[in-house]
């Protein structure tokens, strides 16, 4: 058995029909204007007896308008796709239960799914009992003049009820008088019958769900070189390599770029004219308040629980929880999940990576002790195994092979020889000499190293030929998302 549901839909139609037929009146010979009662016609016998006070002596009153449903039929010409589901997104205003009033703030949000209702044509009848012809003329003139040919018939004022509106049309199949003319022996009561039709919908319940809006659309577009039908038909590659050069279309609200710096995320206004790397974030015109985004999803953002997910060019997403800076709503404070940050690349004292054969796990490290400028930093008496990233060349000069050449004292080996160290190299003190464990001039792989002096991880990008913070920087529009 199906679960019971009932919404009183036909009841509302008949209620509104009676409303339309109400408040008509007649004027008697002395000028009194008297309202004609209108009521539902198909009455229960017990109710009728109670209304009659259970007495034969109670008298009915005339004139009287009685309304009822005469017929209802399935309306096949109005049949539409029965499987169609319409979705509508509704945001309510917040409601103050104490004062029983709506507030100026956003409240609950819903997505309402409505399935295609079933079309019917309902025929209403209005029987008008009058005690004389003058009453009938008066009532007919009032009723007939407002139907030209129809009136709106609306059962609810609920915005999401797409079945609520119909039209009530006065058709021509009514009966002017129930009496025989001439009347003969009997004096029956005189009933005028008016017939109305209304196209209506009978609908099952809706689904009311939490508001769900598509906020990011990723659409793979497969590009293929132009060709002719014939050549593509004969070209196997057209099939096997179809989509070999995929492009991706990403739609995001606001088209914001994201600047992640020092555990703070800032929304960067997108502009076709600006270079991503050249944004002045101190200019208010270039940044936006996080409220412009978060208010699209009211009551979803929870400080320290909602996540920001960054998609680096290589590797899995980096996840951080967010909290809005209470003093500046353009700043989102981040706490990174360290498990999602890329792992450091282990390099041993021989310069071998953990993926290389012969890697010495005993001396392998993914960290450096500091990043130093060798022109201003003196390692003095370094401990064995200490590692630095150096920012400038050491002893990379044309006079290096000159026997008279004497390099900087701070960077001499134990035997007073001068090591040649390139900028961006990672160098390690072996106890007797400086050795290069990472050579920036020959490195071809992405390398992650953490500076344990500051705790910041850096990435060597062979394309850029420079060290940069591993995941901080500007993420473009498609490379970040919020999980609220």
């Amino acid at each position, binding site marked *: 058995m199906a679960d019971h549901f009932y919404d009183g839909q036909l009841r509302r139609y008949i209620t509104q029909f009676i409303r339309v037929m109400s408040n008509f009146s007649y004027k008697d010979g002395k000028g009194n204007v008297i309202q004609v009662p209108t009521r539902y016609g198909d009455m229960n016998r017990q109710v009728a007896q109670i209304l009659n006070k259970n007495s034969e002596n109670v008298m*009915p009153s005339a004139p009287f308008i009685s309304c009822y449903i005469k017929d209802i039929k399935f309306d096949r010409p109005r049949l539409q796709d029965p499987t169609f589901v319409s979705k509508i997104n509704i945001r309510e205003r917040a409601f103050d239960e104490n004062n029983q009033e709506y507030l100026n*703030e956003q409240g609950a949000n819903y997505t309402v799914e409505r399935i295609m209702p079933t079309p019917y044509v309902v025929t209403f009848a209005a029987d008008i009992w009058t005690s004389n012809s003058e009453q009938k003329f008066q009532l007919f003139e009032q009723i007939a003049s407002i139907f030209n040919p129809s009136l709106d018939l609306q059962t609810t004022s609920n915005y999401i009820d797409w079945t609520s509106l119909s039209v009530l049309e006065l058709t021509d199949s009514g009966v002017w008088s129930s009496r025989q003319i001439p009347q003969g022996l009997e004096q029956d009561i005189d009933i005028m019958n008016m017939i109305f039709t209304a196209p209506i919908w009978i609908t099952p319940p809706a689904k009311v769900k939490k508001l769900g809006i598509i906020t990011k659309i990723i659409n793979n577009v497969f590009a293929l070189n132009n060709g002719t039908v014939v050549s593509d038909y004969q070209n196997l590659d057209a099939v096997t390599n179809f989509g070999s050069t995929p492009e991706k279309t990403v739609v995001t609200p606001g088209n914001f770029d994201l600047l992640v710096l020092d555990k703070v995320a800032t929304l960067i206004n997108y502009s076709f004219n600006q270079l991503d790397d050249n944004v002045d974030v101190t200019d208010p015109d270039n940044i936006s308040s996080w409220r*412009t985004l978060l208010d699209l999803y009211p009551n979803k953002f929870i400080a320290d629980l909602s996540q920001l997910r960054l998609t680096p060019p290589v590797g899995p997403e980096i996840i951080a929880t967010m909290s809005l800076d209470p003093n500046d709503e353009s700043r989102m404070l981040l706490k990174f999940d360290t498990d999602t940050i890329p792992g450091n690349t282990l390099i041993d004292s021989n310069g071998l990576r953990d993926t290389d054969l012969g890697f010495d796990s005993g001396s392998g490290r993914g960290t450096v002790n500091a990043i130093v400028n060798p022109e201003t930093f003196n390692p003095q008496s370094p401990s064995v195994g200490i590692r630095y990233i150096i920012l400038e060349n050491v002893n990379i000069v044309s006079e290096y092979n000159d026997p008279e050449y004497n390099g900087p004292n701070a960077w001499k080996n134990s035997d007073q020889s001068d090591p040649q160290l390139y900028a961006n190299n990672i160098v390690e003190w072996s106890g007797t000499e400086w050795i290069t464990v990472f050579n920036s001039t020959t490195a071809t792989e992405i390398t992650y190293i953490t500076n344990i002096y500051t705790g910041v991880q850096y990435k060597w990008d062979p394309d850029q030929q420079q060290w940069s913070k591993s995941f901080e920087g500007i993420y473009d529009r498609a490379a970040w998302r919020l999980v609220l």
Partner: protein
Amino acid sequence: MQDLDFNLSQFGLFLNNDNIMMYFHLRSNVETLGRKIMSGDVIELPHLKDEYALDDSLVALKRFYVVQDVTRPTAGFSQTWYPHLLRAKCVPLVDSQEYKEILDADAGDGNSLRDLLSTYQKNIDINNQIIAQAEEDAPQSGYDTKSYFVIPTRENGLVDIADITSTDIDASTEQAITDASVVLRSPKKDFYVGYLTGDGVPPNGAPYDFGISFPANPATGSFYLRTDYMPNALYRYNGKLWIRYEDNVRMTMNNFGNQDVASGPFEEKAVRKTQKGTFINNTNTATIAGQVVPERQSLSKALKPKADN
């Protein structure tokens, strides 16, 4: 005496074939009434009084019949062939305008006979309850969107807020009672649009003023309802111009005229003012050539000469 059954019709209960024949002495009848009894005369039958009706007032309900036809019965002729009797065919009385004076008469306890015997008032009460329910279901034509929230958005779909980058004075900023650094602006357009959704009230419960001319120095985003337009038009100030936001096109679907709202359960409710309604529910007057004339006139009598008295 006869056995009768109730007939339940669309108008309520009727006694089926409740016709009774009553015989009157002709001369006595004329001496009493001054004429013969005739069709339309109403007769009270005291012996059919009902003391046990369902009635809170505990009043016995009287029985009334109305004469439908009067003839000379065959049994009323004497040996001289002169008639002495009248035969009246009587049917139950109905509360209609023909018997208004009888039913308006005092029943003795301050109530009229209509109050005690007629179903009229009960039917009117039922009718009013149905109208009240219909009004509860659909108070006005169109759709109510007052309880919905409209997020103000910019061209790119983002939330339109007034923050530190804003340079103009915003209505919602002025109205903000908190010291929040960011407040929503008023929406530039309504999100919930459809057939008859305009109600002349700003979205999100925003404050507004009304009148027949726009105020000077309005704040950006403020609303103003022009009541000199029909239907009333709601405008929003965008910083440079007053932009029409919506018209108040929703109105009552009750079939009320002016007499319906003058008193009673629907006192002070709105009169139906559709286009056609303004022709019917029209109490306006016009002074034309020094004479006050009602706007509403029957088409057959309009502009005809009228008596001065």
